[in-house]
């Protein structure tokens, strides 16, 4: 069974091997959960907790368990990335960078209690669980940042997550006045991790680090990455290849 809906400003697709009325109900519960997270944590909804924090109507001591959990992830991400990951953006509190991965993780955990073989794709961030109907690992492509209809790598994932960070805006070359031609810049960086929270926040942080990003991932145990620069050259961490099919 496969269903796509647009929630949190992005297409969210649920895919499961099971195809029963119960699966349909499970999908409904999963989408409902994403909608609740959107209501609670969207920086754009006046009634959201995030908006209340920005209006200073909610004190840290009033945070519920979920918000404390998100805060703890945000703090951990900030430290692990040497400050690159920060939920404060232009003076406003915006935990979206954590909430996205956190929400996918929550929904995946809920779904895994009822079904084993599925994956969740939320705006290109994917958490897999179990296997396909034919017993093989889920095949997940890495999109070509130059051509969205093409894949430039195909992964076999079973239980892992992959997140890709990048900019959809191209053609804005930065020229170095001291050198000839444009400075090489990164277009997209994909990170494989045991779960989507880790893949998501590390992809975001490593992409922001520029050329050091891929080395940063290389040094982390349990993470692999694939970087594409604007010259069409891919750089991969030493263990990336073992996930390629």
């Amino acid at each position, binding site marked *: 069974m496969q269903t796509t809906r647009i929630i*949190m*400003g*992005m*297409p969210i*697709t649920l895919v499961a091997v099971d195809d029963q009325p119960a699966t349909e109900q499970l999908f409904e519960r999963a989408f409902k959960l994403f909608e609740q997270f959107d209501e609670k944590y969207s*920086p*754009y*909804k006046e009634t959201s907790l995030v908006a209340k924090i*920005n209006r200073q109507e909610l004190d840290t001591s009033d945070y519920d368990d979920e918000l404390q959990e998100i805060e703890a992830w945000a703090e951990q991400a900030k430290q692990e990335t*040497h*400050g*690159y990951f920060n939920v404060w*953006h*232009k*003076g*406003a509190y915006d935990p*979206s*960078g954590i909430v*996205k991965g956190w929400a996918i993780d929550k929904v995946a955990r809920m779904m895994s209690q009822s079904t084993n073989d599925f*994956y969740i*794709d939320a*705006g*290109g*961030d994917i958490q897999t669980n179990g296997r396909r109907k034919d017993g093989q690992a*889920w*095949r*997940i*492509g*890495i*999109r*070509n940042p130059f051509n*969205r209809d093409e*894949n*430039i*790598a195909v992964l076999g994932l079973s239980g892992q997550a*992959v*997140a*890709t*960070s*990048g*900019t*959809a*805006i191209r053609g*804005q070359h930065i020229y170095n006045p001291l050198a000839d031609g444009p400075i090489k810049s990164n277009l*997209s960086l994909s990170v494989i991790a045991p779960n989507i929270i880790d893949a998501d926040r590390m992809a*975001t942080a490593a992409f*922001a*680090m520029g050329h050091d990003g*891929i*080395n*940063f991932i*290389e040094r982390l145990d349990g993470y692999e990455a694939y970087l594409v620069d604007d010259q*069409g*050259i*891919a*750089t*991969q961490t*030493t263990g990336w*290849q073992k996930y390629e*099919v």
Partner: protein
Amino acid sequence: MMKKIAVTVFVLITFIIYSIHQRTEGNQAVQRVASSASAANSTNTTTTSPPAPSSSQSSAPKYKDGSYTGASSDAFYGYVQVKATISGGQLTDVSFLDYPQDRANSIAINDYAMPILKQQAIKAQSAQVDGVSGATDTSMAFMQSLGDALKQAKL
């Protein structure tokens, strides 16, 4: 001879002053963009649906000439905000004032001894896939911000 040198020096100084002036202007422009973006972010931006595609390809002016800044729109990871330029009643340019991942500057990361990582030119793969990982699509946010800018430009 002296006259020639004096002229050269004059031209050079003029050029340097001009460059400095341009650079300061550039910085100010960046700051203006940044402050207008954060102002837009702090207000609750209502999302507007993109304009319906026009049924005819007529070249009759539909928009007032000028530049229009769209509302900053949520791409979840950040904000997309565009400026639409209309001339001769037509949309002639769209520039990005803000887009996701536009975050800050480099910091020094300790240099460990790093293995040489494998590099290769990207190549399209033909294998069938179940799903695809790519950068979060900003196209929806782009459409929203552009739709908002064009609404302001409507005659």
